[in-house]
């Protein structure tokens, strides 16, 4: 059983120290952790460092687990591709790196299963270039799941999805984490979604971890002000779920009042505030 603990993790991009001194408590399997923070806070760099794709100091402690190439899987942000490959072929590619050229029947069956679970089975024969941004993101999730990771680092997996699909994917990832007993870290901008679907949150600002704990403890008016430079607070909505109410950018005096945060609106607000 894999656990994840980061100790004094840091990394550079060129000469700039983009992440430093990130230390977490032990993250248990079966949990989803939201990694939150404004753009350029260092979320992607942290993921790349944890996945071993970027060099840097510190220790990534996996408990007693013997790691292999698929133990920690990083799903980068979507960049699109001009490759003449079908969705199905691109998922096979993810599964087969470093192994034989022959694709076995059970490997095909597993891919069928994952595409069906993500409800993109009908896209299997389509070329990557013909997909919408949202469809590409679902394919990227399939490419990650097919590797059977124990720790999954997802970099803004829902950013190009419509509201329905965002909720569907986050709910699906929560089920995957619980069902397969794996650790899922999701970099996410929508704090309401973090509150609704994630067990805990890690807040990053300027490459440093500023908070870690249950979402309802981490995401509060202090975090909104200090990390996102917006004024707001968290209250329970009519369904009993915690919900963010924003007043506006904290450096504006006559900001909009009592604006309920729509999905993804907070990210835009945070951006506007910078």
């Amino acid at each position, binding site marked *: 059983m894999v656990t994840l603990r980061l100790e004094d993790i840091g990394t550079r991009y060129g000469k700039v120290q983009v992440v430093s001194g990130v230390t977490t408590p032990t993250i248990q399997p079966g949990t989803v952790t939201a990694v939150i923070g404004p753009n350029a806070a260092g979320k992607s760099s942290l993921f790349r460092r944890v*996945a071993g*794709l970027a060099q840097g100091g510190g220790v990534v402690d996996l408990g007693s687990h013997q790691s292999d*190439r*698929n133990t920690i*899987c*990083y*799903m*980068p*942000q979507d*960049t*699109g*591709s*001009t*490759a*003449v*490959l*079908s969705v*199905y*072929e*691109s998922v*096979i*590619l*993810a599964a*087969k*790196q*470093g*192994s034989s*050229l022959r694709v076995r029947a059970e490997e*095909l*069956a597993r*891919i*069928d*299963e994952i*595409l*069906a679970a993500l409800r993109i*089975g*009908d896209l*299997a*024969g389509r*070329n*990557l*270039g*013909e997909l919408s941004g949202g469809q590409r993101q679902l394919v*990227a999730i399939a*490419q990650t799941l097919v*590797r059977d990771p124990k720790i999954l680092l997802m970099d803004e997996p829902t950013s190009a999805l419509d509201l329905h699909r965002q909720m569907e994917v986050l709910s699906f990832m929560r089920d995957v984490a619980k069902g397969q007993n794996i650790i899922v870290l999701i970099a996410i901008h929508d704090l309401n979604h973090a509150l609704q679907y994630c067990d805990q949150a890690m807040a990053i600002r300027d490459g440093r971890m500023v908070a870690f704990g249950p979402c309802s403890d981490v995401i509060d008016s202090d975090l909104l002000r200090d990390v996102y430079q917006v004024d707001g607070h968290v209250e329970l909505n009519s369904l009993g779920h915690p919900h963010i109410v924003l007043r506006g950018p904290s450096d504006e005096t006559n900001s909009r009042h009592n604006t309920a945060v729509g999905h993804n609106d907070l990210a835009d607000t945070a951006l506007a505030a910078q």
Partner: protein
Amino acid sequence: MTTNQISVEAGSVHYKARSLRRFLLLLAMAGALFLSFAIDLATGPANYPLSDVIATLLDPWSATDQLRVVIWDIRMPVALMALTVGAALSTAGAQMQTILANPLASPFTLGISAAAGFGAALALVLGVALLPAFVDFIIPLNAFIMAMGTALIIHFFSRLRGVTVETIVLLGIALVFTFNALLALLQYLASEQALAAVVFWTMGSLVKATWTKVAVTAVAVIIAIPLFTRQAWALTALRLGDAKAESFGVNVQGLRLRTMLIVSLLAAIPVSFVGTIGFIGLVGPHIARMLVGEDQRFFLPASILCGALILSATSVLSKLLIPGAILPIGVITALVGVPFFFSLIFASRRKSW
């Protein structure tokens, strides 16, 4: 069966059907290549009945001396050279396009052919041997050293920090202009006889093929194939972008450098033997991509077969267009190949880059 079950099956069923279709396409291409090779052997300025050609191929010592010499010593090396050079250039182009993520990449567009042309011209015009120990092979050796040197410049440049694939392609284009200017300068200085030789060399021709040249080119291709095959999944993943390939566990920088090194050899060797044949390295891979996509398990053999087939068919055409004369093959590849390529682009409904 529920709707969900139908869609569950669709992916792998479609994939298997597509894979089978691609395999059959490869077989068809191999068949076409064999046919083209046979016709190449059977055609030439001297007309021999097909039965005599086949008999000479099957039992050389039963044929007349003249027939044996024509088929085995003249036509066979040329026909095999067409296959090996076509295969080498097309493979080099395919992997250049893959690692540089650019549809314009080829030995020609990255300046390797232009460098070879300049090297050959140094020998033909000034008599300068870049490797004085082997004066007998002054032209191909000069061409090879310049071509390899250029490929290595691109190779080492691509290792520098912060150099993107776009920069590499721009460097290649700058090298084309540089070597073309240097070649023009040599042509300006050249005697009439040397000028004619340079012009003929740069047109590209298979007629000076020998068994040694065929063997050297074939060895380069034979060494490259397993090296690329071993990296088939990783090379295909490169086409999804560096970030995605890295996230799959591919050592992107290492793979790009190793591939560039093999590609440099594959591009430099044929060019130094046969001169500038620009079209194959660019278009061979594009036709292969249109036919079988970019899964390297199919794309690599398809590129090899496409390149060999195009050059072999062009070799036949170069002998048939003006009976009794053999036109320079580099001219024919472009003149016949370009309209063919355009017709494929416009006929193909799928996006091919």
